[in-house]
């Protein structure tokens, strides 16, 4: 999504204000005038100033150009299912690993998610399933086997 500098500037002002507000609640160690809140508050203030400069710069250049511009615009690719579907499948795969891997296991989530992602970028069924199997098993062998990373086993607990 592309947004104008005025909008992103406003967003950074909001983030800066939020950081400043939350940080102001951090306690200072016994009687000292500064502590854990000092740097976050400087950073928050910096973000507010930077965001403000973005807004001002955008308004000035807009006035010079004189043409109205939309505040936000979606990438043309994301407006059609051609681009939207693969992007959605990337999110499905990542979220699947976060939410389902503990119960279903790494291999199940990875094989199903990768197959869907390959299908969404228009590979054939056989190629999608084959590549998803190969990719998932390779990662499993490399990380769980060689590098001893405790990837969740899920349904396969006791078999592997």
């Amino acid at each position, binding site marked *: 999504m592309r947004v104008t500098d005025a909008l992103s500037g406003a967003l950074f002002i909001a983030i800066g204000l939020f950081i400043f507000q939350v940080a102001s609640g951090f306690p200072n160690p016994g009687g000292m005038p500064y502590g*854990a809140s000092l740097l976050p508050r400087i950073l928050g203030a910096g973000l507010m100033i930077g965001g403000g400069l973005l807004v001002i710069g955008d308004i000035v250049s807009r006035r010079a150009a004189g043409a109205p511009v939309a505040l936000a615009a979606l990438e043309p690719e994301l407006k059609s299912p051609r681009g939207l579907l693969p992007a959605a499948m990337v999110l499905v795969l990542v979220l699947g690993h976060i939410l389902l891997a503990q119960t279903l296991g790494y291999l199940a989530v990875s094989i199903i998610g990768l197959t869907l992602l390959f299908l969404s*970028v228009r590979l054939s069924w056989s190629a999608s399933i084959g590549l998803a199997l190969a990719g998932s098993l390779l990662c499993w062998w490399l990380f769980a086997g060689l590098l001893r990373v405790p990837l969740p086993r899920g349904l396969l607990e006791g078999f592997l």
Partner: protein
Amino acid sequence: MGTFDAIYAAALLVMDPTVLLTALLAGMFGMFVGAMPGLTATMATALLVPITFFMDPIPALAAIVTASGMAIFAGDIPGALLRIPGTPASAAYVEDSHRLARQGKLNLALGVSLVVSCIGGLFGIAVLFLAAPILAEFALKFTSYEYFWLAALGLSCAIFIASAAPLKAGISLLIGLALATVGLDPTTGVPRFTFGSTNLLAGVEFIPAMIGLFALAEVMRGVIRLNSADPVQAMPVSSGPLFKGVGGVIRKHPKNILRSSILGTLIGALPGAGADIAAWMAYAVSKRFSKTPEAYGKGHVEGLVDASSANNAAVGGSWIPALVFGIPGDSVTAIVIGVLYMKGLNPGPTVFLQNPQLIYAVFIIFILSTLLLLPLGWATVRAARQVLRVPRRILLPMVLSFCLVGSFAMTNSSFGIIVMLALGLFGWLLEENGFPVAPIILGLVLGPMFERMFMTSMIKSGGDLSAFFDRPIAAVLGVCVLLLWSYALISAVNRMARKKGLA
């Protein structure tokens, strides 16, 4: 034991078939890990530690030295091919090497990078060999004021590396620094921005963050365009020998190599500053002094020469304080110090007196591993070029798969994946709107040191800011930082005035 006896004893220790084979295998491992996007030299070293636990000190050190040096170079390979730096030390010039690859000069980019890495590495070792005690003593005299300014200088570089939009780069840097404040405050122990999450107490893990910002964002950008009518232009594969044209580039920039090797070694020798900062600083210095600063970030070989020699020089440099005083120069040497303690060899001045052959053995291993860089690097580049023949619709999902397991491996929980996802989406949005993401990583990496030094200095001086300029070296560094900033502000005001004049 005399120096020559010690060197002879060290050579006998190293020229053992077991040691040489260990170094070769560890080098191949380092090449592999460094070439995988998102896996860092630090990770290569950390993964080796359980294995080196079962080895004698010399093969253990050989494994770590070789693997970390290889991984630093190998990080350039995915940087050039996929615009994903394999290690943070390659992030400074990833834009240049990738654009060179897109112009069909992949072999030139990687060949130059390989040869100058080797030269920079050898320079770093020479300094380590000759000047280790003197330099470390110099760095030891630094207090929190000097470290604060040094960190500030590194952070300021993030803004000057970003090409056209210093304001947007500055905002990115502030975001990175703010992310670095998440977790337990190192000075007072107060939890900050954790919102009740125990995972966040340890802070935002920077490797999943880097995988997200550089890799996931790249995957997102790539997949939405895969099915479009005009496919992404395939990268032209350059044929011919890898080292063709490299000699010309090196003959053209001998001063750059020397300057960046010195800079890289010095930065590496400073505790807490390693190959990453060396590459950023060398790149920024190179851009400042270049006759063609406008070409940087657009596929220019000069910045590549500087930053690539500096990051390998820093590897040698970072061992100076580690060996002489037991202070880690970067995360790799921090792990090494742990290994030395495990072996009952306490690093520090006493090692030089009691086990000088061990120190010289490390030096010899260093020289061997740097020379090994050329054949192993050549082979890895050859193999990595097969990646180009894999269609993007197969490659991108596979890259995503590696990102997922890599992020998981850093925390051994799905928290790493959550960090990767959040920062990946955020970084994608930022880049679509012209905000560079590299300063976020720099802020995240340098942030903790920057804040610790700042707070320590503030507490020592009782809030008196003039104390930051009281000591001579601190004053020089501080003036450098202030000059950089005033220069940036003045040129920004000038630009605005010129724009108004045109309108």
